[in-house]
């Protein structure tokens, strides 16, 4: 069942394709066929335009998930955030490659392409957007909790023994 549903949603999940009402200018993600904010909904019919989100945004609010959904056991604890985009819509998505303690409201993030879930060992693999900390944040390498491995010193290549 989920194959058809995910496949239909590919433009949104892969490429952040939303829509904008040409009457009132409101932006939506996922895309809508009718504008819910226009006083006369019917007037927006056929006037919704495709809107490509840039993938940029900042954390509007977030939660840390310790009791994972099926398939997310390996990623606990993970951060699920509401991300406010410059285009307007607020997206829900996981923030990856980050410690929960590093995440705060206002953190700048950028959409990244990741594996969302697998339908068991033999089923289809679903892909889509998640969010990673934006490069502008200038993040230093951070060791996970309990980490004891120091970052190896940068050394020049050793001359080969022949």
């Amino acid at each position, binding site marked *: 069942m989920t194959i058809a549903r995910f496949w239909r949603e*590919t433009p949104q999940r*892969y*490429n952040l394709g939303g829509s904008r009402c040409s009457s009132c200018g409101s932006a939506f993600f996922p895309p809508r066929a009718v504008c819910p904010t226009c006083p006369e909904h019917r007037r927006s019919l056929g006037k919704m335009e495709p809107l490509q989100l840039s993938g940029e945004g900042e954390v509007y609010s977030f939660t840390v998930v310790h009791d994972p959904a099926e398939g997310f*056991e*390996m*990623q606990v604890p993970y951060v699920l955030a509401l991300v406010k985009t410059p285009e307007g819509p607020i997206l829900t998505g996981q923030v*990856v*490659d980050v410690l929960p303690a590093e995440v705060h409201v206002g953190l700048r993030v950028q959409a*990244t*392409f*990741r*594996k*969302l879930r697998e339908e*068991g*060992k033999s089923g289809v*693999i679903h*892909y889509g957007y*998640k969010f990673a900390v934006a*490069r502008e944040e200038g993040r230093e*390498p*951070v*060791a*996970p909790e*309990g*980490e*004891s*491995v*120091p*970052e*190896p010193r*940068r*050394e020049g*290549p*050793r*001359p*080969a*023994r*022949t």
Partner: protein
Amino acid sequence: MSEEPVGIVSYGAYVPRYRIAPAEIGAVWGADGEAMGKGLGVFRKSVPAPDEDTITISTEALRQALARGRISPQSIGALYVGSESHPYAVKPTATVVAQAVGATPYLTAADFEFACKAGTAAIQTCMGLVKSRMITYGVAIGSDTSQGAPGDALEYSASAGGAAFIIGRERLLAEINATESFTTDTPDFWRREGQRYPSHGGRFTGEPAFFRHVGECGRRMMERMEMTPKDYRHVVFHQPNGKFPQRIGKTLGFTDEQMRYGLVTPYLGNTYSGAALLGLANVLDHADPGDRVLVVGYGSGAGSDAFDLTVSDRIHQFDRQGPRIQEFLDGGTPLNYALYAKFRGKIHLGGS
């Protein structure tokens, strides 16, 4: 040489954020990991997050290449992904990548596999299609999330990463003057259908495999182009570890300075199909107009592809938005072995 140029129009790369050091791996298996790492010339290797695979790495690399080159994804006529860790045995990596960058539906796409040289084979295919004017732009990606069996020597080096090259006729960053290949049936490294980890011939992976193929192919390329090692500013070899490429470089007559930017494995590990291409990407990050570059890839099984390139004047105007290779070499979040084992799915959770 060619009557019409063909070459690299843009390039992008992606390496997962996590790193593990050989000492951390060795400590688990009762081995001197630090000595192992020094012997291999690998100081750390990249580790993909649990939600990363060849498809996600390829997509990130190609998105960067398209943005940097300001190329419309709809103008891509062919897209090939070379990898030995395609997430599906049957169902192309290339279709997901093409859809994810907005290149569908009017293009041809396929997955390539030739151990570590599937990415260079994809470049050669794109060169042919571009040169024959069948397409305007071809995309060649080399990307992997390879695994070594726990405790095996490969575990100290097998890592994850990839690079995407857009091949075209105009606005070239570097012209590919010629390509050369050297191919034989040599069983030095393989993975049978359904097997989780690859097998290898130990020391057999050296002389009759890597050194013979890379050496012969590199020499032949230089002979054909009437070039000598000193005529090249940069050289890139396939780099299963830090040691093999340095040894073959010395044998062929190249200096450490010529190999400086092309050697990235010491800080990323062996990214397999991505290895030589990430080395080339790092060279292009540092190259100047007029630089001659020699690239010799290698794939077990076995074969080598060589490329002779000349960097163009456009390289200085090229907008390298997004991370440069140096950021991947310097950055990263260190992992301990327990987290690494969890991330790589080496922990059995029970159930089906």
